[in-house]
């Protein structure tokens, strides 16, 4: 009798346990590979903090429809093989529904596997065209405009300011640097701008006299940088002034950073950049105020958050919104197609001024704004309204 009772109780527990395990749903999980060390660490450290902040804010506000949002990350060292290994390790351990990668290279390498095998909603520290092609890979998206779109903003701005101007492309000899150049040549032609020079340099190059004198000889009026963060942009700007040249310098997202203005100092006004996000010091925007309040509460010693922070913050907001929408669909967010549909359904999503109301189009957000450095405040001032590129 005792034996029978004992067996019945154990069996009941087993059945209950199996049922609980079977019913246990995978919680909403984000896994990220940040370039926390290496050449892109300036972006990775900020990005890791941004993602953590959005996750914490979301969980404080009740999570994803009551479910706690999980977040795990690893350092990819800005090396593709290390990043891919880290992604596979995180996936094997946590089976995330969404993932974030560290570079264009990692995105290209993992893209086919994400589509065929992992089926995670994916974004990265990249604005490469390849990551915003829903027909080829619906799981990849960008939290802003592609580099080609950003070039478009700059070229349209130049064509409006001075039609038929002499322009030069100054880019790094990397994938990042070369990405929008071919499309940029076509756009310049269409807009009637004269592409008189293409200068190539190593990232962090210091001996730039050849390139600068070439631009002087070809009477370049606008120089567009791509593929650099601060060096050698600051060196080019300073040396051009030393040579008595009157060139207007412009650049895309990753170089439109406070770091560059700090290096330019009194020459900050010589640089105009494109960004998809507002800056940390635009105090009149509710979204920025929220970030400022959170930063003051959690990181009292931190005075500023970079554009890298804003980009990853935006990506994570889109992840969270996609989770929330997908959770209401049959199958929930554990069905990969639901997350893709949820992302693509985002229209006029209010992000408190961090960007204009967000509409995801072709898995990117094709909007940008021109900012010029202010030497008096050493900050970027917006000099155009938000420009839609679709």
């Amino acid at each position, binding site marked *: 009798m005792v034996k029978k009772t004992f067996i019945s109780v154990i069996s009941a527990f087993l059945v209950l346990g199996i049922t609980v395990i079977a019913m246990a749903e995978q919680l909403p999980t984000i896994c990220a590979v940040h370039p926390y060390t290496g050449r892109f660490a300036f972006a990775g450290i900020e990005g890791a903090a941004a993602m953590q902040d959005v996750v914490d804010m979301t969980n404080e506000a009740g999570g994803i429809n009551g479910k706690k949002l999980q977040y795990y990350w690893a350092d990819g060292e800005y090396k593709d093989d290390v990043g891919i290994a880290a992604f596979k390790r995180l*996936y094997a351990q946590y089976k995330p529904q969404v993932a974030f990668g560290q570079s264009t290279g990692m995105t290209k390498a993992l893209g086919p596997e994400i589509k065929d095998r992992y089926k995670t909603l994916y974004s990265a520290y990249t604005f490469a065209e390849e990551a915003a092609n829903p027909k080829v890979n619906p799981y990849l998206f960008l939290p802003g405009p592609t580099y080609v779109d950003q070039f478009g903003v700059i070229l349209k701005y130049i064509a409006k300011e001075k039609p038929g101007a002499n322009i030069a492309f100054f880019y790094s000899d*990397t*994938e990042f640097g070369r990405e929008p150049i071919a499309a940029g040549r076509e756009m310049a032609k269409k807009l009637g701008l004269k592409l008189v020079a293409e200068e190539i340099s190593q990232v962090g190059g210091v001996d730039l006299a050849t390139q600068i004198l070439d631009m002087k000889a070809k009477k370049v009026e606008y120089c567009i940088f791509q593929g650099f963060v601060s060096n050698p942009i600051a060196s080019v700007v300073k040396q051009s002034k030393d040579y008595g040249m009157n060139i207007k310098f412009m650049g895309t997202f990753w170089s439109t950073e406070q770091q560059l203005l700090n290096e330019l100092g009194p020459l900050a006004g010589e640089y105009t950049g494109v960004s998809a996000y507002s800056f940390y010091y635009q105090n009149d925007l509710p979204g920025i105020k929220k970030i400022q309040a959170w930063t003051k509460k959690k990181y009292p010693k931190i005075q500023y958050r970079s554009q890298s922070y804003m980009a990853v913050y935006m990506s994570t907001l889109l992840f969270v919104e996609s989770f929330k929408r997908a959770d209401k669909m049959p199958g929930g967010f554990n069905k990969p197609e639901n997350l893709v549909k949820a992302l693509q359904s985002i229209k006029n999503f209010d992000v408190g001024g961090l960007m204009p109301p967000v509409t995801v189009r072709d898995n990117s957000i094709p909007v940008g704004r021109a900012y010029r450095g202010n030497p008096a405040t050493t900050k970027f001032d917006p000099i155009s309204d938000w420009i839609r590129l679709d």
Partner: protein
Amino acid sequence: MRSGDFKENYISDEAIFPSLFARFWVAVLLVSLLLFPFVANNHLLYIANMIGFAVIGAVGLNLLTGFTGQISLGHAAFIGVGAYTSAILITRWGFSFWLSIPLAGLASALAGALIGIPSLRVKGLYLCIATLASQFIFGFIFVHWESMTKGITGIHIPPPAIGAWHFDNERKFYWITLFFVLLGVGYARNLIRSKMGRAFMAVRDRDLAAEIMGINLFRYKLSAFAISSFYAGVTGALLVNFLKVVVPEQFSFMVCIEYLAMIIVGGLGSVIGSVFGAVFMTLVPEMLSVLSDIVKEAAPEMASLIVPFKQVVFGFLIVSFLIFEPRGLVEIWNRIKKFFLLWPFSY
């Protein structure tokens, strides 16, 4: 202690596995390698594949640098030549993966032989710079010959297949990697105990004396470059077929430095040293990453200190090995073997 171990002819003296004991442990290793994919997850299999590619590349470089004494800073370029050859043959001309591998090796061998021609006139650091030029030349070609290489966009490659069986994940590709690793290591180990291997070592030790003895320097130096580059080409072809994409940035100058570090840390002039070096340089950073992730989860507020610290630890490990064992990991292995061979006697 092993006793009564004597050889009656040169063939048995030159045997790679001279004793039953050695053969037994090699068999255990082979069985472990065969069972590994059935117990490992995708992450471990990814690491295993990357170690395999590194082993093949490191063995090739050690044949050139460790055995023949020719320093090369162009190894990444030859890996790239093999990679692009394989990718172009598969995607453009419909070659099968299986045919593209040896052809990729041959293309790299040809490139390596061409680049090796200066070795007849220059030595040491001067040869180093000459081979460095090849790194930049091929890097330029990979980026700018867009009609063939598709420039920075890169080439996406379909997974290898035998009939309907596709090798499209880490577990399946592991068998291909294992096959080529065993083939490459086996061939290299046999090569160094052959006439050609002895000629390589003579060139390394004293090339003028070797020439006087009748060793054709032109032939053997070029052969060393060609064989080393063949290995590099196979490495590149396997790597890009595994990753299913080839872009120029995969073959940067840092890759040359990594392979040189593998053979130096592992042991110059030793095939098994190349294996140790490849395993060390691939596995240790990954283990440090896992360790730093565990520590970071426990103390997230210390992440900014803990995560970069693994680079410091890795650098410290390399420097320590070189200080305490300048002949590399293989010398530690030899001492361990000798200990068990002579146990309980220490001399």
